């Protein structure tokens, strides 16, 4: 009896940390199969691509831990990107443009960042209010918001790509501190994403706020009975999701010096990438369990698969197929585990001893 318990604990532990095994496995396979996979020249751009979905994945994971899907992040990325670029240009011009010097650039960027982040958080607030107070399913609310926000971005940008009229920030944010192999991935953007990731991981795991959020996602009724303001928690999780999605978009746009209104509508959609990473990273779709760090590791894993497949000479189509299959396998595994668990519910412990004896007797009879 005791032994099976130990085994299941081990399996549990492995399953909890499965994403690290996945990553290790992918790295081994790709190193063997795709020449040059581990070269710094390959790793650095790969990590760079991962920064946007990692940032967006933070908030997405928060929303899912509370038991909700925030599909609007797909558009909020572009909201953040468009607003930061557009508002920078507006205020830069207002402050006098090129003739005004560095002070004007810095002031304009600060204002643009604040406005873009506020816009993202506001979208999250709206999502949260409708889901928590209006009791509408998050899927419907956020898919509506996704469409509305795409519309907003097109209107705001008049369908054009917006570029900032100053290159100062791009030069700073994307420049490696050291031109040393592997360490060249460290840029300001990388540092910002890492810091924000660390901040939210700590918020989630080490504070009462975070533990209460888990409780809300795991059993809302129990959380409510324990005196937790469940509606407020849900709203806050959506605000965080809007905030990080916007910040992801802002940093991405700044690093490219371009806000494209339809980014993500062709090619691999960042929304799908984030959704797949969150689930593969172990966040439970119905809420109550998950980690932003593991979501980030899952993003890197999927990027490594994409990258490795290209290295093996396979195209874009195989990338999409591989990501889809990986997601499929994980979701199936999750569903099966839930089914196994549901079968055991209501089992009478008092009968288990007899059940074991009966089983033994019957198998020896055969």
């Amino acid at each position, binding site marked *: 009896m005791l032994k099976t318990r130990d085994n299941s604990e081990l399996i*549990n532990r492995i399953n909890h940390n499965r994403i690290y095994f996945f990553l290790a496995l992918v790295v081994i396979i790709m190193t063997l199969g795709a020449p040059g996979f581990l070269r710094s020249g390959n790793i650095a751009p790969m990590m760079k691509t991962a920064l946007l979905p990692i940032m967006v994945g933070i908030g997405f994971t928060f929303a899912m831990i509370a038991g909700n899907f925030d599909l609007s992040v797909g558009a909020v990325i572009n909201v953040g990107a468009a607003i930061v670029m557009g508002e920078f240009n507006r205020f830069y011009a207002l402050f006098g443009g090129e003739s005004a010097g560095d002070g004007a650039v810095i002031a304009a960027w600060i204002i643009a960042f604040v406005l873009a982040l506020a816009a993202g958080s506001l979208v999250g607030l709206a999502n949260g209010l409708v889901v928590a107070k209006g009791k509408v399913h998050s899927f419907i609310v956020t898919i509506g918001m996704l469409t509305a926000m795409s519309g907003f971005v097109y209107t705001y940008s008049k369908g054009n790509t917006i570029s900032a009229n100053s290159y100062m920030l791009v030069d700073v944010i994307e420049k490696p501190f050291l031109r040393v192999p592997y360490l060249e991935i460290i840029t300001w953007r990388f540092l910002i994403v890492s810091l924000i990731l660390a901040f939210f991981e700590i918020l989630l795991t080490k504070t009462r706020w975070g533990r*209460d959020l888990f409780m809300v996602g795991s059993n809302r009724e*129990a*959380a409510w*009975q324990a005196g937790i303001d469940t509606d407020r928690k849900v709203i806050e999780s959506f605000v965080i999701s809007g905030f990080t999605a916007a910040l992801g978009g802002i940093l991405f746009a700044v690093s490219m010096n371009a806000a494209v209104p339809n980014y993500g509508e062709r090619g691999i959609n960042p929304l799908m990438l984030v959704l797949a990473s969150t689930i593969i990273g172990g966040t439970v779709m119905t809420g109550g369990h998950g980690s932003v760090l593991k979501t980030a590791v899952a993003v890197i894993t999927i990027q490594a698969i994409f990258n490795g497949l290209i290295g093996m000479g396979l195209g874009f189509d195989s990338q999409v197929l591989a990501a889809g299959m990986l997601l499929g396998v994980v979701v199936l595994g999750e569903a099966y585990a839930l089914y196994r668990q549901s079968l*055991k519910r*209501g089992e009478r*412990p008092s*009968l288990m001893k007899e059940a074991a004896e009966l089983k033994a007797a019957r198998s020896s009879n055969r």
Partner: protein
Amino acid sequence: MSDPTVALSMKKVSKKFPGTLAINNVDFDVRAGEVHALMGENGAGKSTLMKILAGSYPDYSGDIFIGSQPVRLANPSQAKAVGVGMVYQELSIAYNRTVMENMFAGKIPKKGLFIDWEELKRKTLASLKRVGLHEKINPEALMKDISQHESQLIEMAKVLNDRPCIMVMDEPTSALSSEEVQMLFKIIREIKKQGVAIVYISHHLPEVFEVADRVTVLRDGKKIETREMEDVTKEELVEMMVGRKVEDYLKEKSHSFAEPVLEVRDLTRYGFIHNISFTLHRGEILGVMGLAGSGRTELGRCLAGADPVDYGRVVLGGEEVTIRSMSRMLDKGLAYLSENRKTEGLALRLSNRENILSSIIGRLSSRGFYHPGKGGGLIKELYEKLIIYPPDPSVGTSNLSGGNQQKILLAKWLSTKPKVLILDEPTRGVDVGAKKHIHETIVKLAGEGMSVLLLSSDLPELVSLSDRIAVLKQGHMIGELTHGDGFDENKVLLAANGERSVFSVEY
């Protein structure tokens, strides 16, 4: 009134539901440091009375005093604040979270900005110690890995954290083995010593005699009596619960049944029901009695193919069948009316016609196309037989009364024209009139040759409909009462409590 030991008194409390007076002028008091058993049949009003105490029904009438303070309980947090702790049968557990997070949800100790894990662990262990689990349970274990019995104790510890002066336990032993029950009783006695007033709801007579100091019996929403446990006998208690309402035996006469339709041998689902054997004859109504957690519903679900069967032989209509799925069992002529019509039985948003025909979509289809029109005659027949109101099958099922919804559910399974019909609590939450119609229909169907397995905890229903009553206890069939020997509600209740002397046939 001025008795200082009274922790709770409810005076002339009533609660109305649409159509019924669920609690009718009940006086109920509990002393500090006593275990007060609250007994009564299903629907007697025990749970309603306790829900009033928990603050779930703010629209009650009457007065409630905690100690000598009058209180008005309008919501659960108010009830909690005045010292009422509820240990629910349906545990409110977050399975994905750890034991300690569950126990201190919303009040996790902090050190500065961060959680004080050491303090949390220490507090959890201290709390677990009160229920004797501090050496068995790791506070960091996930709740989903904790057994049901231990979950129950953890739930108790959680309630005790709030230092309640009144603790209500609703059927706390339904999922426990006898050793676990003894452990629970030991803990209850400990808590009692600390001056907590405990209300203990249960059907199990031996347990009540063992643990309770006083007992109050409710029947039909009214209080019958409060007695000291020492001055009351088992038979008296049963009589108080059941009353003298002898309902006429609905079947004309007990035939001798010769033709077996369903033979079950050693049916087993490990951990739920073990080695269940019985024979059901043509035209017979076999009642199955068992207290909460005895495996009654599990037996029905296994036979119907809804739950997996691990072992056993089933012969249906002379043919040996392997139970694989519900649709297969339906094809073989066995239908199962599930316990909960709202979650398992009916699609409430569909119309009555769609609900009734939903079990025979395959039979009404040809070449892949569904012809619901073919079911028109059948629907008319069923509507007449069951007297369903309103007599319009296009009405949405959600608009019907509970009784008529239950008739629709019965019609759904009757439309499959089963040889064997398993009824799981066929009249739960149904008004008196509909109950009578349903009972008459069941008897009529049996008269026409259908065999019925009646799983019910409603004693009058079992007694007035069944030709035989088989008794389940802890997943085993322990005996049988036959109508020929004469059975009444008292005997059935005693049998379900394991009183072996009343059986006609003992297994």
